């Protein structure tokens, strides 16, 4: 056993209101520099939808992630020799058009325009070329467009649905969508790290944060193609790739990452998971339907004396083990099995997990009468407006039973709390539902507490990072605003 700690995350999709506050917090801190305008290290997608960059989940096109070839694990985008042969032109690299051309507006025209018959306008200007452009796409172009024929119907996850289910998803009366916030998953088996020809990408041993060494990055762009989540970005101005750094300067000073801190819906949880690094490769080669259990088996019980001893032997600090025992992520992922990894079939083992969303209560209109389709207070999961098959494609590596388990447990907790606080549901029924959902009343209470009443300290259990001697601590970060590089700072100038 080679025990390592990983700062891991849970996003509770049932609570996300799609306000994009997380994206703005991140953008203002990290990606307001030249060359990074188009990057959204944190973005929020409307699902079903095409996402950012457009149709990023279509790996036939983007070639992200791993695949099994003759029992071996290989990157879809390249192997070692093709990486070098294609180094002059990466055949799988997305281009600016797959994201969008960033723009600003010609605001001064509002003040300087000569008097005329029409109101002056602020025309959009490309932030790449500085010329006027016709804006045709943006990072949230399909925001809230559930059911739209251009966006929602082109969602790659719909492949898993029967034509009937698709129709169900897009029937006008039953239109539905949910929000899907995304950041770098800081994977256990990151494809970006494995793809980098220069060895510039690495995983931090102590906390598992995946970073790009800006001094070592030579801009070969292989990481951009290899990441199946498209969460490494190419800075076209500095010629280097950049990605979410999980706000490590904030974590090191005990603060939650900006997107977590600013989350209005309080959907985000952060805490340490201990995992067995020695088994990653073995588990990554499991068949698709065993992947979820496989990843769960990598995550170790921080209360197990054997694990604690092994963790100490592997150099994990006692304070980190203690933090792992308090981790809300451990509860959601391993104990309650409510949170699931996105697209585990890419085999990178993302360490950001999602609690699948409950669909809203369904209603149908018959003449002037609006009737709830489900007889009880909460809809039937099988009749869910977002088909379980869709959620399973997104969050369950195709395993519907894993998603159904998480949804049923959530539903049972709701009934249980309903019986306790409102009383219009009998406790007998609630208890029976809990039993069917593999949930005790203590567990239901704990889920309720951590879902609905969680404080800042409950949601973010940040481990001590033990980086007190890091030189950067002595420097004023604001002094270096808009400079390039993390962990070192210099002006982003090229050439000599």
């Amino acid at each position, binding site marked *: 056993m080679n025990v390592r700690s990983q700062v891991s995350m849970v996003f509770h999709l049932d609570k996300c209101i799609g306000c994009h506050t997380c994206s703005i917090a991140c953008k203002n801190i990290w990606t307001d520099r030249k060359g990074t305008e188009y990057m959204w290290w944190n973005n929020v997608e409307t699902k079903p939808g095409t996402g950012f960059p457009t149709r990023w989940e279509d790996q036939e096109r983007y070639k992200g992630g791993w695949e099994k070839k003759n029992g071996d694990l290989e990157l879809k985008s390249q192997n070692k020799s093709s990486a070098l042969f294609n180094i002059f032109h990466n055949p799988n690299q997305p281009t600016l058009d797959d994201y969008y051309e960033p723009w600003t507006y010609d605001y001064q025209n509002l003040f300087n325009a000569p008097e005329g018959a029409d109101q002056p306008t602020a025309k959009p200007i490309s932030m790449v070329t500085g010329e006027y452009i016709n804006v045709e796409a943006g990072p949230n172009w399909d925001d809230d467009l559930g059911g739209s024929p251009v966006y929602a119907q082109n969602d790659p996850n719909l492949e898993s649905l029967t034509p009937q289910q698709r129709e169900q998803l897009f029937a006008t009366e039953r239109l539905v969508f949910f929000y899907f916030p995304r950041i770098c998953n800081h994977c256990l088996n*990151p494809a970006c790290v494995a793809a*980098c020809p220069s060895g510039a990408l*690495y995983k*931090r041993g102590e906390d598992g944060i995946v970073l790009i060494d800006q001094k070592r990055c030579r801009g*070969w762009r292989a990481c951009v193609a290899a990441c199946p989540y498209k969460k490494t970005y190419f800075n076209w101005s500095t010629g280097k790739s950049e990605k979410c750094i999980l706000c490590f300067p904030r974590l090191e000073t005990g603060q939650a990452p900006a997107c977590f801190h600013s989350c209005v819906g309080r959907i985000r949880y952060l805490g340490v998971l201990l995992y067995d690094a020695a088994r990653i490769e073995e588990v990554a080669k499991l068949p698709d339907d065993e992947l979820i259990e496989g990843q769960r088996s990598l995550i170790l019980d921080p209360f197990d004396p054997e694990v604690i001893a092994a963790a100490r032997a592997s150099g994990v600090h006692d304070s980190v083990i203690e933090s792992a025992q308090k981790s809300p992520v451990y509860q959601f992922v391993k104990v309650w099995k409510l949170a699931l990894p996105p697209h585990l079939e890419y085999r990178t083992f993302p360490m950001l997990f999602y609690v699948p969303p409950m669909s809203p209560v369904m209603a149908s209109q018959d003449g002037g009468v609006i009737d709830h389709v489900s007889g009880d207070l909460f809809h039937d999961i099988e009749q869910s407006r977002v088909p379980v098959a869709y959620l399973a494609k997104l969050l369950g590596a195709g395993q519907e039973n894993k998603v159904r388990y998480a949804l049923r447990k959530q539903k049972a907790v709701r009934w249980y709390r309903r019986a306790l606080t409102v009383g219009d549901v009998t406790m007998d029924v609630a208890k029976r539902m809990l039993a069917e959902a593999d949930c005790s009343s203590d567990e239901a209470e704990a889920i309720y507490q951590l879902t609905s009443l969680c404080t800042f300290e409950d949601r973010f259990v940040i481990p001590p990072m033990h980086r007190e001697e890091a030189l950067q601590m002595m420097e004023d970060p604001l002094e270096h605003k808009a400079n390039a590089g993390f962990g070192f700072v210099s002006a982003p100038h090229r*050439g000599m």
Partner: protein
Amino acid sequence: MTSPTMNLLLFAMLPYVALFVFFLGTIMRYRKAPFTYSSLSSQFLENNQHFWGLTALHYGIFAILMGHLMGLLIPRQVLLWNSRPLRLYVLEIFSLAFALMALVGFVGVIERRIRYPKARTVTTPADWIVESMLILQAAAGIYVAIFYPWGTSWYSTSAAPYLHSIFLFRPDISYLVTMPLIVKFHVVNGWLIVGFFPFTRLVHALVAPLPYLWRKPQLVRWYGIGILPVWPRRASGVRD
């Protein structure tokens, strides 16, 4: 380019100035400004024409440089190979084909950078200069190959000794002074490119990521240990 003083300056002095600047410049830049040690890809901004120019130019220039290096390192073997006309023709034709490929590639990339505004925004003055020098170099080389035939042979008997004399610090320019003007231009421009090299994007050639072929897929860095060395230099205490 004909007076004895000029010859001395261009063929005996310039090489040393160029080589000195090359070594000092590339090393200092690697140490002082590692962030800048790469090319600046514009594939992200323009991906339609990118493949044709870039691939042709890189494969062409790589083959041509290898040819020059072989003539320099193993001139006897090259001559031996060329001792049969058929083999000579094969070598000449392949060399010319790669040179043309490089030239077409160079013209393609410069045309691309002129044509597409997005690619133009990430093009620096140093890029235009070095690109022009490389186009002239390729064009001159092709002219020589066509109009002064069997260059693969006479390179081994006259250019290689000149280069040997330079690298052994016993500059002997007698091989060059009688050469046609275009050959002299090719040599002088070559040294200028060597001298200009450290100040341009060409430095990316020195950091070609060959270690990728044998390194492990996943890299882990531990605090306090610093940059994980790439095989075979392994620091003690590095775990992965």
